[in-house]
């Protein structure tokens, strides 16, 4: 009973959040705010895509900056060198990143844990090196620019920022919804979880782990590429630094912050951490990465399930309180305990 109440409460919070996100252009019609919000939403997609592969399926990737950069360079390059429409560029960036993702996933099927992380890290470094040195295509260290943006946007600065924001939010929301759908409602989602928990057991239960791991790679890297494409057309500059390990680190920080293995947690974490990051910019540019590093360390040690974990924990807590109350009901005369909908997360009885 309490679980259902909690779920409806969560739905309410999510809906309210969604309304705020959708109405943001009307609430804060300032290009600067909207610009930050747009970037935050792009990061949310990247963090969710990382979570699909690493948090949900347990195949740790240290190379998501590589897929992101690949999507960005493909999308921008198609528009710049071949004159293709940005929409087509986005699709090709997504597809290209997904292809490379499967290409990495294939040999990486044999590798687990540490090894996979190291291979993906090396892949991202190779992509960064290529971006830096393949001057004729990527523009080298200065990056690629001057490749147009989404067509058909209104002309005024505010209207343009509003339209871009809505566009990006729509694409990202769609992509996150697809990932959530795949993970929650299809057999693939079950298979992903089974692979994460125990790959050998999953295989012995007749789950084709090869296919599902490749699927996870394809989805995850594809959506990372999509985020890259959005980033390219929004920021209007793609430089080799997007493929650097710092990007991966930031994404992992966001995912850990939000909560691994939930898809929506990392998206939320990305929005919040990005906001914190930008706020710290006013204190000093260098401190935002200090904060990211601290966040990762503190959350991994003390709250490995992140902010989403707080919610889950609360749910469990309510269940336990129900049990407690049932016991109390058995002994008449006890005053009914107040079960607020929001018990403190720091409740000493909650266990990690």
């Amino acid at each position, binding site marked *: 009973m309490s679980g259902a109440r909690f779920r409806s409460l969560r739905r309410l919070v999510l809906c309210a959040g969604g309304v705020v996100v959708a109405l943001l252009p009307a609430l804060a019609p300032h290009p600067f705010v909207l610009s930050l919000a747009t970037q935050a939403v792009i990061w949310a997609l990247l963090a969710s895509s990382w979570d699909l592969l*690493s948090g949900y399926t*347990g195949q*740790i990737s*240290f190379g998501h900056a590589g897929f992101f950069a690949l999507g960005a360079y493909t999308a921008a390059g198609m528009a710049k060198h071949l004159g293709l429409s940005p929409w087509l560029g986005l699709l090709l960036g997504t597809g290209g990143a997904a292809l490379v993702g499967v290409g990495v996933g294939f*040999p990486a099927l*044999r*590798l*687990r*844990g*540490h*090894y996979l*992380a*190291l*291979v993906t*890290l*090396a*892949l991202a*470094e*190779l992509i960064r*090196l290529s971006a*830096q*040195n393949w001057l004729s295509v990527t523009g080298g260290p200065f990056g690629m620019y001057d490749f147009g943006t989404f067509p058909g946007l209104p002309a005024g600065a505010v209207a343009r920022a509003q339209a871009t924001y809505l566009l990006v939010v729509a694409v990202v929301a769609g992509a996150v919804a697809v990932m959530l759908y795949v993970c929650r409602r299809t057999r693939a989602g079950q298979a992903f979880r089974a692979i994460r928990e125990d790959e050998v057991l999953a295989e012995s239960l007749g789950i084709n782990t090869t296919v599902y791991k490749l699927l996870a790679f394809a989805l995850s890297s594809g959506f990372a590429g999509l985020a890259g494409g959005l980033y390219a057309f929004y920021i209007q500059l793609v430089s080799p630094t997007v493929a650097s*390990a*710092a990007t991966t*680190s930031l994404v*992992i*920080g966001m995912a*850990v912050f939000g909560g691994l293995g939930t898809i929506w947690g990392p998206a939320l974490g990305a929005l919040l951490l990005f906001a914190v990051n930008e706020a710290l910019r006013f204190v*000093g540019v*260098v*401190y*935002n*990465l*200090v904060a*990211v*590093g*601290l*966040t*990762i*360390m503190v959350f*991994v*040690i*003390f709250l*490995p399930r992140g902010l989403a974990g707080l919610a889950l924990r609360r749910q469990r807590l309510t269940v336990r309180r129900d049990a407690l109350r049932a016991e109390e009901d058995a002994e008449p005369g006890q005053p009914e305990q107040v079960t607020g909908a929001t018990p403190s997360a720091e409740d000493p009885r909650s266990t*990690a």
Partner: protein
Amino acid sequence: MVLGGLYALFAVGLTLIFGVLDVINVAHGEFFAVGGYLVFAALVLLHLPPAAGVAVAGLGAFLLGLAVYPLLIGPLKRRLGRRPAGSLYLVLTLGLSTFLQSSLLAVAGGEYVRVPPLVSGILEIGSTGVSHQRLLVVTVAALLLAGLFAFLRWHREGLAVRAVAQNPEAAQAMGISLTRIFVLTLGLGAGLAGVGGALMAPLFNVYPAVGFPLTIKAFAITILGGMGNLVGALLASLIIGVAESLVVMAIPSQWQNGVAFVVMIIVLLLRPQGLLGRATSR
């Protein structure tokens, strides 16, 4: 050879940590950077003699490394208990890496720092000259590594380190404190990286992110040599160092850094246990 010596100092420390703690230290390169900055502080700001500068750098990184276990890895280990860690340690040390790197950036600024050569002069061998600095790197690296191997071979604590690497439970049953060994190992690994950073500072420039590419390269070396295999790591360092120097003749030098990654991917595909590693079921 100079590169090989440096890689050896670096990768052997990483391998040692992996062998003993089963943790891949993504923040290893940051200890290298710390060493570089410390030697800069000692030589340029405090005007200490070069040998003292290197000692300060090594000691500083060693002390910093000592703090890693009690502050980060220990708490996580305690919280996890017997549950599998998965990649949490990787993510944890990645956080440490980001934290140290950006802290260096905050303290020292993003500019390249130049460190004067520890020794000057050039040794003429035939038609080519080798600066004394480079010779120093190789010599000190060789001495330190010899010292490390001797320590692990004969010293009581060193034996304990090897015992823990082989079988933690049995070592514990013999009365070895695991925590003590873990702390010591991280300190040693970090100290080696710090000395490496100090020695190389005059050849590279020092900047906050100087260590990270090295970390990735050291992963490649570790994998080539076989995870947790110290001799393998030493051999692989020399191979990669020489290969990188030679490959410049064939391809443009800006691709030089790619060599290690390509080698790593090939090794993982063909012989995942590395050159000297035993086949294990992973």
